């Protein structure tokens, strides 16, 4: 990786495309430097040497010179065609996924990424777990506007368009955590529509898959609820403090809720169940119809979610000022190097980094709490 003092100047090379891309990039950089220096030096040299009043030979100036014109037409054309060839060759490679690629289906929507692994059906939001040394083919579609799925460390990017499937493929070469950026302006929180690719050793990936997308199997109801909470990305709206998108779940259980029609109710199990499957019958004061309807949830999932909500504190308990969590090991952390740990902590769920996340109580849970990591570290 190139560095300027201690500052990186180039992205990591983490896919099979990266070295070839960078070879072309640096070749072009050298061409750019050579030609612009050539022009710059010539122009300045001529302008100073032939400045008015200087005593230099100006005899027999030329105004037309066909061989010269042809030279500087043909040489750039040939150079251009060579670069074109290598660029097109790399592009054709990028557009031709190998037969044995693993399929992952990606859905982009304002402002999150949703991925589903075939054939296991394991799903995740704003993260993408992949094995290294294995071609991965993404089949992508958008649910609303045009997005672009961009992983700079892999040197790949392709638009995610509503109404049609687009594909791209890549093969990671080393374990690590890499950026996912949405790189097509998609309104509002475009800059926060991102996440991380976790490139893992194949056996870690197999492990991850067999656990249904977590490193550890959920055992308690809270843990299962937390996993569902994470899977559905409830934390997008239900953060540690109330936002216009939704109330905080900390200490919500047992509190009296006021509705827009003037009635009120204590937030008990029945209230939570109803809020999930039919949120619009009664709207909480101060909110709009922003809650999604989750009537496809099983009763078991609902019970687990309620248990998780209770674990965030009931109204009897004081609201935690700052959720603090000892960093857990191994939440989908492939490299487990120091650097990767830090990266995870900074923005495991990049979206909500600004706000502390609602998360499970300290020491209580070990899964599905990616979002809490960011809160904890802050």
């Amino acid at each position, binding site marked *: 990786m190139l560095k300027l003092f201690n500052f990186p100047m180039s992205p990591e090379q983490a896919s099979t495309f990266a070295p070839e891309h960078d070879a*072309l990039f640096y070749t072009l950089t050298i061409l750019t430097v050579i030609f612009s220096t050539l022009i710059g030096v010539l122009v300045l040299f001529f302008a100073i040497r032939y400045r008015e009043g200087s005593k230099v030979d100006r005899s027999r*100036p030329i*105004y*037309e010179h066909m061989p010269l014109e042809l030279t500087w037409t043909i040489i750039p054309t040939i150079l251009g065609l060579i670069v074109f060839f290598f660029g097109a060759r790399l592009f054709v490679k990028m557009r031709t996924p190998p037969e044995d690629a693993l399929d992952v289906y990606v859905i982009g929507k304002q402002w999150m990424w949703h991925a589903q692994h075939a054939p296991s059906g394991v799903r995740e939001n704003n993260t993408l777990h992949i094995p290294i040394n294995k071609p991965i083919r993404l089949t992508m579609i958008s649910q609303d506007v045009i997005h*672009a799925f961009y992983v700079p460390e892999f040197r790949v990017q392709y638009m995610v368009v509503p*109404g049609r499937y687009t594909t791209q493929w890549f093969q990671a070469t080393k374990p690590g955590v890499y950026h996912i950026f949405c790189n097509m302006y998609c309104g509002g929180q475009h800059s926060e529509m991102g996440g991380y690719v976790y490139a893992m050793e194949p056996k870690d990936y197999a492990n991850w898959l067999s656990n249904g997308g977590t490193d550890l199997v959920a055992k308690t109801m809270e843990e299962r609820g937390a996993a569902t909470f994470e899977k559905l990305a409830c934390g997008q709206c239900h953060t540690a403090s109330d936002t216009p998108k939704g109330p905080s779940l900390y200490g919500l259980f047992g509190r009296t809720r006021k509705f827009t029609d003037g009635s009120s109710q204590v937030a008990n199990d029945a209230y939570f169940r109803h809020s999930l499957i039919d949120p619009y019958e009664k709207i909480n004061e101060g909110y709009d119809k922003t809650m999604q309807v989750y009537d496809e949830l099983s009763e078991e999932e609902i019970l687990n979610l309620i248990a998780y909500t209770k674990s965030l504190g009931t109204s009897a308990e004081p609201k935690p000022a700052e959720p603090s969590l000892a960093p857990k090991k191994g939440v989908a952390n492939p490299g487990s190097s120091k650097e990767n740990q830090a990266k995870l902590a900074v923005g495991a769920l990049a979206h909500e980094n600004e706000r502390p996340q609602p998360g499970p109580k300290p020491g209580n849970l070990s899964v599905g709490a990616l979002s809490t990591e960011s809160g904890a570290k802050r």
Partner: protein
Amino acid sequence: MSAQTETHQEEEQLNYLTNGKSLKSWLLTGDHKRIAILYLISTALFFMVGGIFAGLIRIELTSPTGVLLETETYNRVFTAHGLVMIFMFLIPAIPAVLGNFVLPLMIGARDLAFPRLNLLSWYTYMVGGILITWALCIGGVDTGWTFYTPLSTSYSHGPISLAILGAFVVGFSSIFTGINFIATIHKMRAPGMTWFRLPLFVWAMYGTSVVILLGTPVVAITLALVMVERWTGIGIFSPELGGDPVLFQHMFWFYSHPAVYIMILPAFGVISELIANFSRKRIFGYHFVAFSTLAIAGLGFLVWGHHMFVSSQSMYEGIVFSLISFLVAVPSAIKIFNWTATIYKGNVRLNTPMIYAICFMMLFTVGGLTGLFLSSMGTDVHLTATYFVVAHFHYVMVGGAITGFLGGVHYWWPKMTGRMYPEGIARVNAILIFIGFTATFVPQFIVGFMGMPRRYHYYYFAPEFQIYHILSTMGASILAIAFFTPATYLIWSLFKGEKASANPWGAHGLEWEIASPPDSHNFHHIPIVTDEVYDFPGVEYAHPSHGPKKKKSKEAEPATKGKH
């Protein structure tokens, strides 16, 4: 030139500035020179507005979590920056200001072919400008200046139709100017002004006008279709309604890529004038420079797909667009090489306009070459829509078009106002622009290569980007000062500047054979052109402050006399 020149007697003759002083005489004028001044004032104001938006963006990006603005506001600010700079400044700047002013003078005409259409062009531009300003004032638009669908048709709120209507209307002002230029160049050249005696600026204006006429109607239709979809729900671009969102990109770039040439070709024209006239030498390879303009104008229509390598157009389509994009780089290279050869064995006067021309050549070379990274498909996949692209097109638009514009403004300032600007400060300032510009945009190439996407408000998840944003903002502060200074000294020169003679630069061209500022009707007798373009005999300085010190004794000698 052996034209029947009016020597610029200093006796009180009404020139175009003093002939009628009322506001009405300005607002209802048919004089191309006055309309150019109206355009100069209005584009300068819009440039200032766009510059303030740019400043806000730069301040905001110094911190990974923003400094002043909410994300919603930030999105509106960068959209406004793009809208104002492109539609209200870059597209009209050189054609409507410099082209309007000097094109008829250069070809020996008394005005453009359709003076009223020319005035209508300015009014149309102002109406469009007011609509866009209005849209910005009542909440702004957060779609990006590109108005990509279906974000702009179905998902974004705010006065989008109003902003689109503004851009739509402004398009017509370019079309009017384009029609006018083409008719004028075809029909109103002075006797003896053959096609290959045309100054290269006129060739550039011709190429630009052709692009405007062929391209602008397409973007007008595209924008109109966006409005139709927003208002009536007829599905053109939204997939939910049966439309195709990528179709919009094809139609939009079919205009907006040639629009890049609408912005840069006129600057090429200005630079050709500056290089030839300040090297005081016939331009090297006149025919190559002239025809490369037409080649760019033609090929420019066949490369729009290079904006869309990763937007689901077919791979083979992409390959063709990539190939043609490499070819369109060649005519630009030809120009650069010919200009360099022109300076060789020249008699170079390093006045401010020439310094701008030299800056242009260095910056545009970098801008053009970094374009190859983006027309090469393999590298474009990684670089597209990152800050690398931002830096690249600013090199072309600011380092190219705006540097050319400023060079042209300084060059023709004596002709336009009858006053000289202060040479010393102007020279220093031109160099300052070069320094500030480089400091602003070189870090953006690096951060773009690292993967920083454009149009991002936050980047706290990638703190390694911050150092480059800070460097870029530091450069931008220099650039801001350097862009503001000319406004002050040029206005100062209107009142205190040295009076300009007819031909303060010893330049060659019909516009320098009439008084500064010219009369309302330019030429008392239509000149007859008998000599070749850029045909330089020895012409001396009329203004000692702008020439080498030792030439002082020549001051009294009127410049245009003694030619031939």
